[in-house]
């Protein structure tokens, strides 16, 4: 077990705490994705995962002192926005057809 970092009020935050925060948020996103049944909630969990990844990008960008990570993060946001638009449109269509938002009902490919 590596030694726990000293908590000092001098203000220096160990770098890997950011990554651990990213891991925790990602895990929460996975949990929401797997264990919630409302489609929109599942979608929001995906957004949470994307945010966690963004945090990782920004952290490493800080570490390397370059802003390429910011740009990647920017693109991630753009793509997430596009995906959200299309995904919500799909959800609307699914709701129109099945009158329900439960993810288990969307199972036409069942054996």
């Amino acid at each position, binding site marked *: 077990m*590596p030694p726990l970092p000293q908590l000092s009020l001098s203000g220096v935050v*160990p770098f890997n*705490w950011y990554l651990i925060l990213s891991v925790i*948020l990602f895990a929460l996103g996975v*949990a929401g994705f797997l264990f*919630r049944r409302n489609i929109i909630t599942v979608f929001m969990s995906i957004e949470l995962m994307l945010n966690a990844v963004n945090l990782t990008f920004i952290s490493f960008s800080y570490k390397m002192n370059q802003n390429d990570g910011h740009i990647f993060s920017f693109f991630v946001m753009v793509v997430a926005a596009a995906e*959200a638009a299309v995904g919500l449109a799909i959800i609307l269509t699914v709701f129109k057809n099945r009158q329900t938002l439960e993810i288990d009902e969307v199972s036409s490919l069942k054996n």
Partner: protein
Amino acid sequence: MDAILFLLFAGVAVLCGINLVLQTHPISSALSLVGVMGALALIYLQLGGEFIAMAQLIVYAGAVMVLFVFVIMLLNEGKERKVHRKLWVRWAGAPLLFAFVAMMSAIVVRILPPSEGVTFGKMTQGTAQAVGTKLFTIYLLPFEVTSVLILIAIIGAIVLASKEVD
């Protein structure tokens, strides 16, 4: 000081995340997600990503989440129904996730020992000018491609959500 701020914002983010997972009504989850995004924006600021922090607040929290809220309210489904899950699924989920987090953290700590810290203000490349310069010179092609992507998404969304022609 930085540490306290970080812990504060990180705590907010985690709590909102847990709230997102645990709440039954989707609108509560959506608002929790907004909280997560706000906290994250502040953390980005601490890491020197000014432009990104603003973009997060404006685009992500301000547009995408509003879209989510619109759709939730449009569909107005209400709370999720409770479902009976198998025993081992109910009791295995949380420990498994905890194990996952622990494992990843161990790996992270092993690779990046807590040598250096983060101080506010050390990163200066995160300004809009710096990011913008790079975006429009080196990363011009991905920029244009994502514009096309957004265009396609718009068209897709319109087609999918339009009324059926009878």
